[in-house]
């Protein structure tokens, strides 16, 4: 049975996020949190594989202790193990430091396939998945629109770019990142709510990991946010209509995903 590890992030459930003017980071207090939709698509793919071929599905997240609630809801969907990497020392980590922490923990697990959402709706960087794969020195396929098949040794999947779809086969272990429209995540189910949510969320702290304090947190983060501002949107003139050229471009863009290209990675 293969072991699939899903990387998930808890994100604010609103587009109206507020930013702390002093630190230029997100204010999370009082904002309802959800599982990042792209990550949830990844968990759904893992659970589908569990249903069809049998697999152990683990979930790993890094964040404050309140993320435990999100993980309980993933137990309620049928995942087998949840790990929450939580420590004050992790706070302020950018994507590089986050990837460092996640990959250090992942090295302690015996994984075959790592699935991450391609990006989080709050940060929009699409960096963590690929960086984790690099730190782990395993192959990666990003922007999956479909997992075609998984065996004990390889995964075949479709990668969607702006203009093409590539069907790729990759040896395991590897890391893939998923697009949120690749499936419809299942609901929690009553049976798992009653019988699977008593499982413990394993809390992993700085002391549990082989990490240098200088590599993580704000100190270990090469990215510094120097300034944030709200972009002013220019209202479009009511008279403006789409030009023929724009329409043609839009149609071409809409049709491209349906033109397939086959290839090997």
């Amino acid at each position, binding site marked *: 049975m293969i072991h699939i590890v899903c990387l998930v992030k808890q994100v604010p459930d609103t587009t109206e996020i507020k930013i702390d003017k002093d630190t230029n980071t997100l204010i999370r207090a009082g904002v309802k949190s959800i599982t990042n939709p792209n990550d949830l698509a990844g968990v759904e793919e893992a659970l589908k594989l569990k249903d069809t071929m049998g697999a152990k599905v683990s979930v790993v997240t890094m964040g404050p202790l309140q993320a435990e609630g999100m993980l309980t809801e993933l137990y309620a969907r049928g995942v087998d193990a949840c790990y929450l990497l939580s420590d004050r020392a992790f706070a302020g980590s950018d994507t590089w430091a986050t990837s460092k922490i996640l990959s250090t923990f992942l090295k302690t697990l015996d994984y075959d396939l790592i699935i991450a959402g391609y990006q989080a709706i709050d940060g929009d960087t699409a960096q963590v998945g690929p960086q984790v794969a690099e730190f782990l020195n395993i192959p990666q396929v990003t922007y999956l629109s479909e997992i075609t098949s998984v065996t004990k040794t390889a995964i075949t999947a479709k990668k969607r770019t702006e203009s093409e779809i590539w069907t790729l086969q990759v040896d395991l272990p590897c890391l893939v990142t998923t697009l949120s429209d690749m499936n419809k995540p299942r*609901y929690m189910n009553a*049976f798992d*709510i009653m019988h699977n949510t008593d499982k413990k969320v394993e809390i992993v702290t700085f002391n549990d990991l082989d990490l240098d304090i200088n590599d993580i947190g704000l100190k270990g983060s090469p990215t510094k946010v120097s300034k944030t501002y709200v972009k002013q949107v220019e209202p479009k003139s009511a008279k403006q209509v789409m030009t023929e050229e724009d329409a043609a471009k839009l149609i071409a863009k809409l049709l491209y995903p349906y033109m397939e290209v086959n290839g090997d990675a």
Partner: protein
Amino acid sequence: MKRDLLIKLFEEFAEKEVKPLAKVIDEEERFPLETVKKMAKLGMLGLPFSTYGGVGATYTSYIDAVRILSKYCATTGVILSAHTSLCASPIYYFGTDAQKEKYLTKLNSGVSLGAFGLTEPSAGTDASKQQTKAIDKGDYYEITGSKIFITNAGYADIYVIFAMTNPELGLKGISAFILEKDTEGFTVGPKERKMGIRGSSTCELIFDKVRLPKTQLLGKVGEGFKIAMSTLDGGRIGIAAQALGIAEGAFEMAVNYVKTRKQFDKPIASFQHTQFKIADMKTQIEAARALLYQAASAKEANEPYSDKAAMAKLFASRVAFEVADQSIQLMGGYGYIRDFEIERYLRDAKITEIYEGTSEVQKMVIAGKVLK
């Protein structure tokens, strides 16, 4: 904690899967079989039973499910209530191990849908006047007669039905049976055309010399009336939950409307008349909620609850009708237009004052308890 997660599941499911269908199944008088299948997959058809494949949630959580579904679609609410309270429950409480193994397992997993047949053309509130006969033929019973107004009929796979095994004994001559839909001699009549809960299937059941092996007897011979009455005690909590759900759903629509609807240059919510009406409706809803969950927790604690269930149903069903009525009034002309969906709540609410014992029957139960 688990209850909160279940509530979150029911809310999410109801909003995404049930709400979008509510209008169309009402218009087309179509049974939402696809929704039933989805509920089965999520364990919602076996909530309060912890054995035979049931989910093992509390009775209160099952009541949450009926209430929340009914907030968006009373048809879906009653499908679940009839299945659980009226079919799975009597099998759970009165069935033999073999019957539970055979039927409760299928009902809990949702492989089979359940129904309950007690009412007859001449035996409504006076359920003791059963005309359907079960004649003991040695190794089987031969059932002849009919039932009317049976919820889930035609879509149910398993029916708990009642028939006279000994007319001379009156109430004590009634027995309960488990009937499978494909039994020879059993047919389902055409769907009734109803005022409300139009997606739910309500039909006549016809028994023409139906041979039921003795293994299909539920409980003991002559125990039927007792089984029916105790089953309806539980069913009433389900209907009270349906009624409260209807009230909550109608109220939510009315509140949203009065906040956005402007007349005399102001949202109509700013008028004191609207505010007082909203306050009254909310108070009624909360009072109904208190009675509903009082009855549910009494049942859950194995305490006597028949009067509590009757009070919950009596009160919640009236609240459902009045809140739906007042919601339409607040929405004015729009409230009367079918596209706005609020009128359906009034049509759906009315049945909660009638089935599983009319409001008058509830008063008989309550007064009976007080004056005994």
